[in-house]
């Protein structure tokens, strides 16, 4: 770069354009979220060819590219496959204040895991392999935050 750039004032032009978005939930996930919102149930769907059970439900089996018409109700419990304690603040995207815990929970009755928060336990005590259950909001809107978080199953509570 030529030297003159060292001697001039750098101008910064800031701008902001508002582009609101509204995503169509579509047929498959609408059913999932309606069941969650209205009945407080977590449903999965299953491939007729390879038998894989997906939660959240899928539009097609990722292995077979088959339509998935069989729906399976899940008990809402699962096992923590992995987790992390988030320690930074990013209010624009975080619905919770740090520190908080994300986990991927392998759901009982399904072959996939769900990403969500883990709470009602000190972050330092969370371990992979823990048994957890979904805790639902009392007032639900039909989105993933209708599940408030997952909490440790009480010992001997059928997990």
């Amino acid at each position, binding site marked *: 770069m030529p030297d003159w750039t060292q001697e001039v004032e750098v101008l910064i032009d800031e701008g902001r*354009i508002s582009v609101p978005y509204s995503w169509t939930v579509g*047929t498959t996930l609408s059913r999932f979220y309606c069941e969650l919102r209205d009945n407080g149930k977590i449903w999965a769907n299953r491939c007729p060819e390879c038998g894989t059970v997906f939660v959240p439900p899928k539009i097609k089996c*990722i292995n077979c590219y088959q339509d998935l018409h069989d729906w399976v109700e899940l008990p809402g419990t699962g096992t923590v496959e992995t987790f992390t304690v988030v320690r930074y603040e990013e209010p624009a995207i975080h619905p919770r204040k740090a520190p908080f815990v994300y986990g991927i929970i392998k759901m009982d009755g399904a072959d996939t895991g769900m990403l969500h928060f883990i709470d009602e336990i000190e972050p330092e005590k969370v371990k992979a392999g823990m048994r957890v259950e979904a805790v639902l909001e009392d007032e639900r809107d039909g989105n993933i935050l209708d599940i408030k978080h997952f909490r440790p199953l009480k010992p001997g509570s059928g997990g």
Partner: protein
Amino acid sequence: MGKRVGIIGVGQTHHAAKRLDASGVELISEAVTRALDDAQLTIKDIDAVVIGNMDHFENINYVDMWAIDGLGAFMKPVFKVTTGGTTGTTVGACGYYHAASGLFDVVLAVGWEKNSESDTQAAIATCANPTLERDPFAGAIGPLATEYSMYMKAYGATEEDSAIVAARDRNNALNNPYAHSRQAVTVEDVLNSPMLSYPVKFLDMCPRSDGSCAVIFASEEKARKLCPRPAWVHASVVRHDYTHFGDLEWTFMPTLERASAAAYKVAGITDPLNEFDVAELYIPCATCGVKWMDSLWFCDHGGAPDLIRKGTFHMDGQLPINPSGGVISTNPIGATGLIRIGEGAWQIMGKAGDRQVPGVEKALCTGFGGCSWSDVMILGADLP
């Protein structure tokens, strides 16, 4: 030397203003499923996938990663290409090069858009240079209106010429079950429709749509084995020469002239008006459907209005343009260019239903977008 490539299957969604029944991924899978059916293949036959759309219309980053379920691309090679309005034709060219390179035999190319999920003009606004051009000139309609005003002044083209094009494309759409907007329209209706930005009126202008298109390309050996009448790719040329709207040449369409001239040379076309049997052209506004005919070498500069008035490009004319209804009837932006290629392919394959032009041997397909960018793809029933 590369391989020769043919299109062996096409699938489209039923395009609409809002497909509230289908999420983006569901829309994509609809087109992909139909393309596989059209080619009588399963997902296992697909060797590689390419996808395109315009990010800011749906606010999804890394769309190729997000679309895996809909594309059937789990554990397959996949990547994304995107070039604004020309995305659809860029996706088509990419599908072609995948197969022509010899690295992949059967390639799935998908374009899609859910324009209903955002404010289209606001999302487009950021394409203009923020310090030089964004405030005065952002948006699609302004530049197109300006362009036709200059053309009217230079060559005596009229608002009625544009209305003829609009009515033609819109009426053609009545034969296309996939088209978004299907309405019988007279030239009078177009002229009487509300003015958007002089001289562009409401019925001159394309809608924004939700939709997806999937096209399957195959290298020669596979194409012959899998398809009775592939649409062979004869040429693919792109010219995206401009960065700033202020640099544009306004009395003709330079990138289209250059791209089409280069494509005609590759494909051995010397008399396009006579040698093409059908054209699916990216005409976003009916005014372009007048002016840009010059730049496709159908006539000298200023010669288009005469051809338009004679009905040259109607379904019963010398060179039918946009039997599908074109962009003015259907515009899911990331798919729009690919729909031109898909429709052109169906015309050659004899699968264009009620909008079939009889005896199609050569089809011309174009893409448009960005800062007056042009893409051209030529398809033929014979091997190139």
